[in-house]
């Protein structure tokens, strides 16, 4: 069976971990720039405030209801995530993290008798309790025959009263469940794809599974077919390849920017962030694209995307930055009030599997080795001194750039000695 372990309201739960006073209080965590809500506890959701709501628009409601507000503290969340993943790995096989707060894994056999199912479910519950007790954050576990089904099982298990965070979807119950699941609620089917499916007369997830393979592939490509197979209980989707063929770092500026150098600095921040994301996944990028945009609700709107290939697959910030700056030169238009910037990296390949061209000299190889070592060194400095300790480019470090409005930042309880929790 395939399992999906997922942390409930992860960022908000982390913020609660070292704050006993918030145990029963609603908590939200804001995005990078204190722009919008990225994580909220159940109490906040019941106030009608959803993830993605802009902070400004709900600020008053939050204050009125005594909601504790935090800026995002990624080093802290990552450390707690590492703990959860480590605990999971101690109990089950094949743990494959899918995002900071969820991981797939494999555990146990497929066909069992009633009595065996019972003990199987007990075992899953035991693992569930252990992860919650040792990590201190609430998690949900869903088990089923495929990843897509595990995702659904996980969602069902989240119901605290009925299932208490764990749900094992037995094969004989799949049909009954899929007949009640709307297409857009299936992992891998977005709203647009779902709308398409509705036009072909499909109504529930079950309707997709009973269609002919060739019909599905013709209308919804091989991706749609994979999803159908997964819903039929056949494991098809590989986490490593399905997970992000691209990575993105983007920001909406606190205030509109008009200077080239200032905007370039934001790209520099993106490059540092992307380098970290790439390193964490053990991959390197072959292409990047820069997106620059003005406020889309204002007159004289401008938005442009410029792709830029990288000379070699890389995670080295200065190499990314050099390409990003070239792209910025191409799309830069003087006189606009820029509202945000974004960089995507694509063509991700495993690090260390660089293909050298026949004519690449030893000199090139030596340079790339040097870049790899530099990247490691930069990673260490960032780890020791925090994000944005370093930036690329020749910009003035003192140049005031209010990129990270983080007025509600919590301490780095678990990664910085001076920030460890205090007890009396």
């Amino acid at each position, binding site marked *: 069976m395939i399992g999906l372990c997922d942390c409930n309201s992860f960022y908000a739960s982390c913020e609660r971990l070292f704050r006993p006073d918030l145990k029963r209080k609603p908590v939200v965590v804001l995005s990078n720039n204190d722009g919008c809500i990225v994580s909220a506890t159940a109490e906040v959701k019941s106030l009608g405030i959803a993830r993605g709501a802009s902070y400004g628009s709900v600020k008053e409601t939050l204050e009125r209801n005594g909601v504790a507000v935090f800026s995002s503290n990624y080093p802290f969340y990552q450390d707690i995530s590492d703990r959860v993943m480590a605990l999971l790995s101690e109990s089950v096989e094949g743990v494959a993290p899918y995002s900071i707060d969820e991981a797939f894994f494999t555990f146990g056999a497929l066909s069992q008798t009633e009595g065996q199912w019972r003990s199987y479910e007990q075992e899953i519950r035991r693992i569930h309790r252990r992860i919650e007790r040792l990590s201190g954050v609430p998690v949900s576990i869903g088990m089923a025959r495929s990843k897509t089904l595990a995702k659904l099982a996980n969602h069902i298990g989240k119901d605290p009263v009925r299932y208490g965070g764990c749900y094992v979807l037995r094969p004989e119950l799949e049909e009954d469940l899929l007949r009640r699941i709307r297409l857009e609620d299936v992992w891998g089917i977005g709203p647009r794809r779902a709308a398409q499916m509705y036009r072909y007369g499909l109504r529930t997830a079950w309707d997709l599974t009973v269609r002919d393979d060739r019909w599905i592939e013709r209308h919804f490509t091989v991706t749609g077919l994979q999803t159908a197979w997964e819903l039929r209980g056949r494991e098809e989707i590989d986490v490593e390849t399905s997970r992000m063929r691209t990575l993105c770092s983007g920001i909406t500026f606190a205030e509109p920017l008009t200077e080239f150098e200032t905007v370039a600095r934001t790209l520099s921040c993106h490059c540092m962030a992307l380098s970290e994301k790439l390193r964490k996944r053990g991959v390197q990028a072959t292409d990047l694209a820069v997106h620059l945009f003005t406020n889309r609700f204002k007159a004289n709107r401008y938005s442009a995307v410029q792709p830029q290939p990288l000379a070699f697959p890389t995670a080295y910030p200065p190499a990314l930055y050099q390409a990003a700056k070239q792209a910025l030169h191409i799309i830069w238009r003087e006189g606009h009030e820029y509202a945000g910037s974004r960089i995507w990296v694509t063509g991700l390949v495993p690090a260390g599997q660089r293909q050298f061209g026949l004519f690449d000299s030893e000199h090139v190889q030596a340079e790339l080795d040097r870049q790899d070592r530099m990247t490691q060194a930069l990673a260490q400095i960032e780890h020791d001194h925090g994000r944005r300790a370093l930036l690329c480019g020749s910009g003035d470090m003192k140049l005031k750039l209010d990129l990270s409005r983080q007025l509600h930042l919590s301490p780095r309880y678990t990664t910085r000695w001076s920030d460890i929790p205090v*007890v*009396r």
Partner: protein
Amino acid sequence: MMGAGIFAGDILVVDRSIRPVFGDIVVAEYDGGFTVKRLLRPDSQDCKAILHPENPDYDDIHVSENAELTIFGVVSAVVKRIDRSWPRTGEKASRRRIS
């Protein structure tokens, strides 16, 4: 917690995997905050545990049956800093005082 050899500024190693039993030194979540105390068996009906401060200047906390008490973890080791810069002076130092 002087009686247990824990002084202001000490760093506690807290193990969440140990199941607490009476007699353990624990970090507890009590009354909206963290506190380090020796966990002792209750001495009356309406009490579920005693948090003993191991310090004659402070009184035992009798945790009543309906009060909320969560054991965050069991203290498994104490790390002593012996340089002059620790604990930090001023506000931080007073926050670090462990009773």
